[in-house]
């Protein structure tokens, strides 16, 4: 088994690199006369850098890049079957599935942590978790879910679908693409190792000075997130270049599927802002080594961190939610059998949000003690965002109007995105308004709001996309009845949990606490029960996916009768995606337009290609 050997070998190399890095730093510290050469956090940093590097070399960077540096020929092994998912594979479809499966596993792990938190919060007082365990659980749930929200749709669905949708054979930089995925395992290991160093004590936001004082798990947290940021930036660059240069002939900007537009806008946000988080955490690491960026007593300023951090982390919510909007609109158009309503306005909405995303960050800091003159401008900029967001709703509602709504599982989830985000958007106004935000800041109202936007907006879209692309990815069909059961179960569980969660927030329950005031006991018990209901719904999903992937009936090339390019090839598509390069002749959503054609495959052999007829849909 080459794949097993390859992964095990790379893990071994990574481990050797880690200890080698520890040792090199220790030797240097010994040479410079430090009393305790092994004991510093800087040893962990050295170990991390060398460990991640050797892991990457072992998993495939040596074969694909390293040999070039010494004038040798590079090589790539294309393994059959499941083994390709465990090797350094440059096929965007393989990478997409690698991302998707990895982050679904992380999603369920982090979801289990949420169940643990809700068990603790079912009653006031501490029952299951000590304060320190609760903080660690909460911090890990937060940062893992942030990672899922950033990477599952972009890395999974984006990687899989974007090259297919634009008629390309692969991404612009396939090797770089594989590299971004193989940076993820060290990130996961680093984050999951934090409980062994005391647990994340500072939540996912890592505000100093707490994150400077806290235990050494902070170092693993920072290193993991900086590495993850690299993944995000390189991936974004790859998407931007791919979308600009790899579109099939005739696929003009005005004919681009809306999901590709959303990925384009998202990638710019990721490319422009991700370094904010990485820089902030790098400064935290330096502070822990004795610098003083954030320590007030030695001339630093804790608020500096919050500005740099939110400068990324607010745009990050658009990195999470824009591809979700894109997917929802995409699926709604196909399953309403109508052209996407007000296409140009939807594109303008994505670009408008891209433009505004960088100037709203300080609405997270209305109570932070920042200068008062900043309140007004950030209130104004934040509320302006509701205008482009409103255009997304225009497009969605206009598309379903008078449509032929085919309520298959992907469509149900896509409609739920619109439903949920309407609630998340309205509650956002309360938090953008300074006078109401001062009370609501850092309460469960905020928790409810961002779960409505990110879970309701993005994770529902992720499930829509999984049910949409499952036949394309695996070549098999899932059980529609179980999928619909999952939908209703999750939809009801989700809304029950998070709608109720607004109430303790208004009443005065702050977030990130293991214990709360006893007057809120009945409410919290109800929320916990609803949360367990939500959690249980995913068991249906897991069973349906695993069983169908192995045993499901063989899927058609185009089971949804969709016009876009990814459905005009076999399920699953061949390595080079299409039998012949497609030429685009018209828009992707021209349902109901007589004689319209999206694309043809001019040089395709007329026989021997099992895909749907060129033009599709009609």
């Amino acid at each position, binding site marked *: 088994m080459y794949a097993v050997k390859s992964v095990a070998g790379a893990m071994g190399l990574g481990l050797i690199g880690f200890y080698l890095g520890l040792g090199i730093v220790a030797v240097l510290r010994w040479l410079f006369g430090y009393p305790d050469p092994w004991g510093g956090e800087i040893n962990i940093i050295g170990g991390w850098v060398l460990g991640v590097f050797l892991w990457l070399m072992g998993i495939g960077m040596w074969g694909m890049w390293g040999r070039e540096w010494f004038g040798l020929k590079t090589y790539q092994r294309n393994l059959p079957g499941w083994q390709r998912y465990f090797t350094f594979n440059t096929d965007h479809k393989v990478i997409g599935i690698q991302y998707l499966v990895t982050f679904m596993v992380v999603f369920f792990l982090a979801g289990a942590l949420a169940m643990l938190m809700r068990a603790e919060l079912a009653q006031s007082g501490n029952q299951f978790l000590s304060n*320190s365990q609760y*903080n660690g659980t909460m911090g890990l749930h937060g940062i893992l879910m942030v990672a899922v929200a950033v990477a599952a749709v972009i890395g999974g669905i984006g990687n899989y679908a974007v090259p297919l949708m634009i008629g390309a054979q692969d991404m612009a930089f396939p090797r770089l693409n594989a590299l971004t995925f193989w940076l993820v395992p060290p990130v996961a290991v680093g984050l999951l190792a934090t409980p062994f160093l005391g647990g994340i004590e*500072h*939540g996912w*936001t890592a*505000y100093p*000075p*707490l994150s400077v004082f*806290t235990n050494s798990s902070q170092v693993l947290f920072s290193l993991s997130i900086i590495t993850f940021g690299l993944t995000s930036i390189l991936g974004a660059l790859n998407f931007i270049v791919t979308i600009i240069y790899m579109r099939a002939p005739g696929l003009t900007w005005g004919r681009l599927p809306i999901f590709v537009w959303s990925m384009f806008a998202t990638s710019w946000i990721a490319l422009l802002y991700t370094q904010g988080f990485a820089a902030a955490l790098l400064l935290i690491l330096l502070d822990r080594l004795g610098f003083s960026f954030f320590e*007030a*007593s030695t001339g630093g*300023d804790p*608020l500096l961190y919050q500005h740099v951090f939110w400068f990324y982390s607010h745009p990050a919510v658009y990195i999470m939610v824009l591809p979700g909007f894109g997917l929802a609109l995409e699926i709604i158009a196909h399953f309403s*059998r*109508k052209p996407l309503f*007000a296409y140009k*306005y939807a594109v303008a909405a994505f670009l408008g949000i891209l433009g505004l995303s960088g100037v709203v960050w300080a609405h997270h800091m209305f109570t*932070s003690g920042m200068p*008062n003159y900043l*309140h007004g401008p950030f*209130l*104004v900029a934040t*509320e*302006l965002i509701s205008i482009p967001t409103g*255009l997304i709703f225009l497009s969605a509602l*206009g598309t379903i*109007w*008078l*449509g*032929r*709504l*085919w*309520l298959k599982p992907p469509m149900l989830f896509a409609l739920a995105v619109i*439903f949920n985000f309407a*609630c998340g958007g*309205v509650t956002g*106004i*309360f938090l*953008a308004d*300074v*006078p*109401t935000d*001062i*009370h609501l800041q*850092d*309460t469960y109202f905020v928790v409810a709001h961002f779960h409505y936007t990110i879970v309701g907006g993005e994770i529902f879209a992720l499930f829509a996309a999984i049910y949409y692309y499952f036949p394309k990815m695996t070549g098999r069909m899932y059980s529609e009845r179980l999928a619909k059961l999952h939908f209703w179960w999750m939809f009801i569980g989700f809304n029950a949990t998070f709608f109720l969660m607004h109430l303790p927030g*208004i*009443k*005065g329950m*702050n977030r*990130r*606490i293991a214990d*709360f*005031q*006893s*007057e809120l006991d009945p409410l919290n018990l109800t929320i916990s029960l609803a949360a367990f209901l939500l959690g249980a719904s995913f068991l249906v999903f897991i069973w349906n996916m695993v069983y169908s992937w192995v045993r499901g009936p063989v899927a058609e090339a185009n089971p949804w009768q969709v016009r876009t390019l990814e459905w005009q090839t076999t399920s699953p598509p061949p390595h080079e995606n299409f039998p012949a390069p497609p030429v685009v002749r018209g828009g992707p959503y*021209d*349902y*109901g*337009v007589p004689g319209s054609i999206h694309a043809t495959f001019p040089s395709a052999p007329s026989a021997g290609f099992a895909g749907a007829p060129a033009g599709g849909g009609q």
Partner: protein
Amino acid sequence: MHGKHLISVALLWAGLTAVGELLVFADLFPTVGSHEAEDFDSIFRFLLILGIPVFTFVIAVVTYAALTWRIRGEAPDGDGPPIRGHGWIPRIWLAITAGLAIFVMIHPGLTGLAKLQSSATAYGWGKEEADLEINVTAFMWQWTFDYPDGTQVSVSKGGEVVIPVDKYVKFNVNSIDVVHSLWIPAFRMKIDAVPGRTTFMTVHPTRLGDYREDQSYRVQCAELCGLDHGKMWLPVRVVTESEFEAWLASLKPQGN
């Protein structure tokens, strides 16, 4: 062909809105303990009144469409009409949503902010001369409240923060270690305690209150500050001025 559907959706929207607006009358808020709390509650209610129709509009269209235009057979029997959404509909939509956004931005957004920052019961700048200034020091994981004549009211369990009713009380907030946040739910006011700078907020309590009867009368830390963040709170009691003087006097022998 739109007419019948438009009327049906409008009726559905009106019905849902009527039900939704009942939320405005629900018992949502903690006790109204100060002027600031009155302002918060009225702005919150105002936004709720405006926000519910927006939410129910989306729900009405999605629900109506899913029930009316769904395909009942196994596969689509044809395509919908190719409406592209050019022309006046998107422009009207843009005008209405932009108008709503700008309206909410100005009122209650900027007007509320102006009141918050300029009036006597202010957030940030504060009244020039408050009736009572309390210096608050936050630390992991408790508070110290220093009253003007040097009384240290602290900290451990059993202590309580006592303030007089109908006075402008200004909290000057400091932290000696990490970022904390001073929050009193009954007053709806919150300000972070940041090491290296003094932040402040002013409240004007309008009624008597006591944590023992009402749990929204408490000082709660609202910014994650490590291990015992969840336990970092103190009871608050709002008393009459004479009671306050007596309480302050009673502390002096032990306090100093």
